[in-house]
């Protein structure tokens, strides 16, 4: 087994896999470290860290794990190696090696996270000594929950060779998990999905009244979260193996066997090739739209804002005594997390998918013989921008529907149109940078991880008053995601957005122009 593991390590050489976890680790520690040097932290740091870190984990780890798992599995899809591996290793060995590889990586990550927070606490000078039992429990939780997520992402990446599916699953899941942390009224929901476990397994509570934090305390874990985590673990491990065992190696990828048709394969084959006798026509659609026919992208486009809207509204209804200004406070519920943490990676998925079409096989040979670079990049950004705008518009539509459902006395805010306009403009800037990243980086998942990082940095940039320096924060600022009462200097906003769009558009054209084509 160790032998296979070392092989796995060799396979993932130069794939930047460890970088994914290293960056994740750095971001979490940097973010936590940034907020650690105030008075309150010195007083109650050891407990406060245990309260804050699960939130960071819930935001960052799921997407990072989705990227990580996709990298490990996708290399076999891309290299067309499943059929070769199948003749050299037993299916069980292939499966368990992938499982153990991920487990090792996540174990190392969780350990490092634990050590980092202990060291940080001592360096900053937290009062008292850490409760080692509590930190031990925190470590075990992070490890097991993240490992569950790894298993889940690994299985999805295995089943669908199109990595967009896995990444979208990861994004939707972590969105739901994060939101459910803020809906304590339905503890069961958090337990049900594995992404919610970071929140569900928290054992430190905060004693706070309106902007003032009194202290932190241990609370009882009586929501049965442990059983759900263990249940998911066995379900994923055994269920995953069951699915894997029953998959056929079909050329480039695995696919699920269809037992029911086994008896009459002959007839099904002949009918499945049934040819339409309609005269051949060329549809009046842009080429790029023809290329994305039959892609599952629209699922994420529909689902992600829907999750945001449903949980946001529920959260709003549950906190009526805390939140006041009706339409505006509902907007924050809907858009805050969505715009900062989920929209950038989602745009990343769109962009990666569009360029992956050309990165596949020797498609570059055909594309560059028939289209000019400026036209190609323009089309890609345009399609990406169109999907992005639709996503944002869908979010606004859901907002209006939810608002009407709640039944506010005031009319729908007219500012919404301006928010959407700015959001779309900033969104196109994000499309431009993501299209550039996905063009240069041939991996599907890495640019998406970078988008998450970008959204996170965008939050920091906005907090520092420099939202215009990053496309990611331009989008969320345009949507007024953190505060609908903010006014934006339109001249600055528009000029920076246009600047980013032109910059990354030209960079992409330049990149294609002065680099030789690379085919797989």
């Amino acid at each position, binding site marked *: 087994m160790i032998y296979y593991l070392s092989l796995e390590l060799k396979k993932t050489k130069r794939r930047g896999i460890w970088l994914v976890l290293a960056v994740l680790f750095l971001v979490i520690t940097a973010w936590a470290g940034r907020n650690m040097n105030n008075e309150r932290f010195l007083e109650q740091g050891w407990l406060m860290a245990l309260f804050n870190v699960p939130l960071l984990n819930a935001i960052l780890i799921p997407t990072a794990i989705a990227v990580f798992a996709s990298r490990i599995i996708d290399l076999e899809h891309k290299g067309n190696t499943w059929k070769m591996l199948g003749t050299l290793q037993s299916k069980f060995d292939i499966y368990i090696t992938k499982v153990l590889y991920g487990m090792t990586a996540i174990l190392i990550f969780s350990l490092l996270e634990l050590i980092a927070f202990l060291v940080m606490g001592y360096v900053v000078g937290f009062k008292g000594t850490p409760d080692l039992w509590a930190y031990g429990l925190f470590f075990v939780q992070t490890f097991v929950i993240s490992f569950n997520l790894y298993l889940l992402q690994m299985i999805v990446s295995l089943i669908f060779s*199109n990595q967009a599916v896995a990444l979208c699953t990861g994004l939707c899941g972590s969105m739901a998990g994060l939101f459910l942390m803020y809906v304590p009224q339905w503890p069961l929901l958090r337990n049900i999905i594995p992404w919610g476990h970071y929140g569900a397994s928290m054992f430190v509570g905060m004693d706070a009244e309106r902007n003032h934090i009194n202290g932190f305390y241990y609370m009882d874990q009586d929501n049965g979260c442990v059983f759900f985590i263990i249940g998911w673990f066995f379900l994923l491990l055994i269920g995953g193996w069951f699915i894997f065992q029953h998959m056929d190696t079909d*050329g*480039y990828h695995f696919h699920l066997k269809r037992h029911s048709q086994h008896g009459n394969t002959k007839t099904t084959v002949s009918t*499945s*090739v*049934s*040819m*339409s006798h309609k*005269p*051949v*026509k*060329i*549809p009046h659609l842009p*080429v790029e739209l*023809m*290329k994305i*026919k*039959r*892609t599952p992208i629209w699922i994420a486009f529909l689902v992600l804002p829907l999750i945001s809207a449903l949980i946001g509204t529920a959260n709003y209804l549950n906190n009526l005594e805390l939140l006041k200004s009706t339409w505006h406070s509902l907007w924050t519920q809907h858009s805050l997390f969505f715009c900062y943490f989920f929209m950038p990676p989602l745009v990343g998925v769109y962009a990666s998918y569009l360029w992956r*079409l050309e990165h*596949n*096989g*020797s*498609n*570059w*040979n*055909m*594309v*560059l*013989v*028939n*289209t*000019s670079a400026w036209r190609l990049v323009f089309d890609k950004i345009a399609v990406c921008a169109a999907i992005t705008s639709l996503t944002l518009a869908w979010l606004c539509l859901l907002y209006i529907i939810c608002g009407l459902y709640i039944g506010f006395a005031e009319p729908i805010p007219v500012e919404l149109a301006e928010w959407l306009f700015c959001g779309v403009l900033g969104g196109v800037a994000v499309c431009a940078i993501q299209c550039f990243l996905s063009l240069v980086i041939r991996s599907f998942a890495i640019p998406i991880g970078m988008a998450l990082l970008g959204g996170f940095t965008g939050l920091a940039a906005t907090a520092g008053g420099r939202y215009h320096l990053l496309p990611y924060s331009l989008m969320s600022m345009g949507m007024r995601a953190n505060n609908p009462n903010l006014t934006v200097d339109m001249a600055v906003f528009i000029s920076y957005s246009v600047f980013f769009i032109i910059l990354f558009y030209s960079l992409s054209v330049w990149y294609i*122009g*002065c680099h*030789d*084509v690379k*085919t797989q």
Partner: protein
Amino acid sequence: MNTNIIETDSLTKGTGRQMRVNHIDLRIPEGCVYGFLGPNGAGKTTTLKLLLGLLKPSAGTITFFGQKMTEKNRLSILKHTGSLIESPSFYGHLTGLENMQIIAKLKKVSAREITNVLQTVRLYDQKDKKVKQYSLGMKQRLGIAMALLGNPRVLILDEPTNGLDPAGIQEIREFIKELPIIRQITVIVSSHLLSEIEQMADMVGIINHGELIFQGTLEALETKGDSLEDAFLKMTGGRESL
């Protein structure tokens, strides 16, 4: 057969010890089948990619239809070419027909031509199947169909018979031979199989280690050794490279 449709002057890719293509002067006459021959890794695909502007030459020039190819006129020249380089390009999640529609749109060709070409490569009956379910030979046919679309003046085919069954090879071979006669298309076809080139080509260029070591008619090649095969092996450094 008097004017050259493609000429290259000391076309070079790579530098110093990593010379992938070394000062190649191709002369490809209009209306011929030009066989581009060489052992594996000799630089055939690199040269063809250079012709299409997919790789940027380190030195040298390419002249198409009497026009020097530049970054500006590249696409307007390539409009009159069809190509299949390395393995066929396709979008696996789309059907054969949908793939053809995309190419037709890019080349601005009418729908009628799609039917035509698909029937030519005998893929019409399979057009509604997803390309990822195609066999290797069918993908290759699709690639040839894409190259043929738009009635090009020059057809560049990189090992077009890869993955085809014997009947398919025979068919493609006959088809290529007819192209200059019926459709006035100049064909450049690369292969590492001498026998294949022998049966289709009028002109031959032999490349080895990035250098063009022979260019001329098949008859001229024959005079270099006891037989064609002998001549080829002599030039490419004997049997070690095959």
